[in-house]
């Protein structure tokens, strides 16, 4: 990676991080006011959409690899996998920040806010508190766990528990699946490299073919898991489903315009592939990293609703209709607003 490219990559990552953070905040507002979700669920689902999905990224990369052989404009920048890892983080942070502010505003142990139906400030249902004979004095179960404790002192058992949760949380937020894919690739490259270059050359063609085969199997399996998640949509309402379907397109388009703006700023025309991959990083919603964060840090949120949207609807849309649509939008943007001095060889529209 030349110096100039490194500078491009650094800037692009920063922009990507900010874009996904904004997407997270937009999702929260839309879900709270338009889709009328509980604030705790709106914050959690916003975390999903403010992050990205390794699976969708890999699928999109597979499609582009298949095309770039015949049409070089489908190429993409080599540092995109690093973007995948970086842009997984903002969603988690957005969700954690909103949730901790909700806790401060007195969220009850079931996750309802004052004014929301079912709000029950009493601590966890130990109405038998009086019946507690000579048990260790527990005082009320303050809301929330790590933060916002009032009353009972923390036993060292609880201290160990809370530190475990925070450590695991850091692990989930920063060691996200994007990183594993990145390091996995590097290690395999290193191992086959070590066993003599002849092996790797021959492997390249095989590797791409095997990769695409494995990709189909992965998509088939994910498709089945996604369908199972759809069942949980019944309780959600059409507005939520509408968000899960339309949202990705809006966020992807925002992403492509941001990438185009950054290109104009640098006077450098990115390849179509880079546009599409960046679109997918913005438009996709996480279903591995953020669910793990949710299980650890937001036990009060609904365990089924967020996955129904991110895996059931958004993932299925992205890997079938989404990617071709984003390719088409990317071509329109580059054709209609060419960056001064750079004429993009006209690419045959999608046949």
């Amino acid at each position, binding site marked *: 990676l030349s110096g100039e490219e490194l500078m491009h990559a650094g800037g692009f990552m920063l922009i990507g991080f900010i874009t996904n953070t904004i997407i997270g905040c937009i999702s929260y507002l839309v879900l709270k006011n338009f889709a009328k979700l509980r604030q705790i669920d709106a914050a959690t689902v916003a975390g999903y959409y403010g992050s990205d999905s390794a699976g969708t990224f890999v699928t999109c990369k597979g499609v582009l690899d298949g095309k770039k052989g015949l049409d070089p404009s489908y190429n993409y920048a080599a540092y995109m996998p690093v973007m995948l890892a970086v842009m997984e983080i903002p969603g988690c942070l957005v969700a954690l920040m909103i949730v901790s502010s909700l806790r401060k505003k007195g969220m009850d*142990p079931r996750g309802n806010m004052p004014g929301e139906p079912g709000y029950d400030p009493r*601590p*966890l249902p130990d109405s038998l508190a009086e019946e507690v004979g000579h*048990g*260790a004095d*527990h005082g009320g*179960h*303050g809301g*929330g*766990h*790590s933060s916002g*404790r009032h009353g*009972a002192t*923390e*036993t060292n*058992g*609880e201290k*160990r*528990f*809370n530190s*475990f*949760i925070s450590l*695991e949380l850091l692990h989930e937020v920063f060691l996200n699946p994007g990183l594993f894919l990145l390091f996995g690739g590097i290690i395999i490259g290193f191992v086959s490299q070590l066993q003599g270059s002849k092996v790797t050359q021959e492997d390249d063609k095989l590797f791409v073919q095997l990769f695409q085969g494995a990709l189909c199997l992965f998509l088939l399996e994910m498709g089945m*898991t996604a369908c199972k*998640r759809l069942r949980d949509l019944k309780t959600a309402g059409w507005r939520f489903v509408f968000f899960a379907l339309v949202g990705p397109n809006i966020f992807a388009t925002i992403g492509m315009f941001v990438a185009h703006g950054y290109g104009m700023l640098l006077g450098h025309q990115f390849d179509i592939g880079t546009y599409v991959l960046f679109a997918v990083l913005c438009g996709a919603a996480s*279903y*591995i990293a953020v*669910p*793990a964060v949710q*299980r*650890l840090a937001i*036990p*009060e949120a*609904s*365990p*089924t609703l967020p*996955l129904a949207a991110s*895996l059931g609807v958004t993932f299925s849309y992205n890997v079938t209709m989404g990617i071709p649509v984003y390719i088409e939008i990317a071509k329109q943007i580059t054709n209609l607003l060419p960056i001064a001095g750079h004429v993009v060889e006209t690419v045959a529209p999608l046949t």
Partner: protein
Amino acid sequence: MPTMTVARRVVVIAEKAIERILLEEILKLGAKGYNCTYCFGKGEHGLIEDPFTGPEHGCVRIEIVTSVKVAEAIMEYLHQDAVQHYPITSFVDNVQVDARDTFYR
């Protein structure tokens, strides 16, 4: 008829995310051993499923045969505020152990 002694069995069913900390604490509280099975189920928190490996890996059922004192300490630990926010269920009963065994003492 081999003579039997009475021991306490604690069963804890919790979400897999907090499996490691629970097992560490259980040993710290004095339990000599435990056995765990992955399971799935429904409780106050609704169905807990691992989106990939399927439901049967959503929760962990930990069975601990130990002395009365340690069993009490475990139940006390599990009912602390911080732990209670997570999907966790626990109950206790008595079992008889062969007098010759010491795996639980």
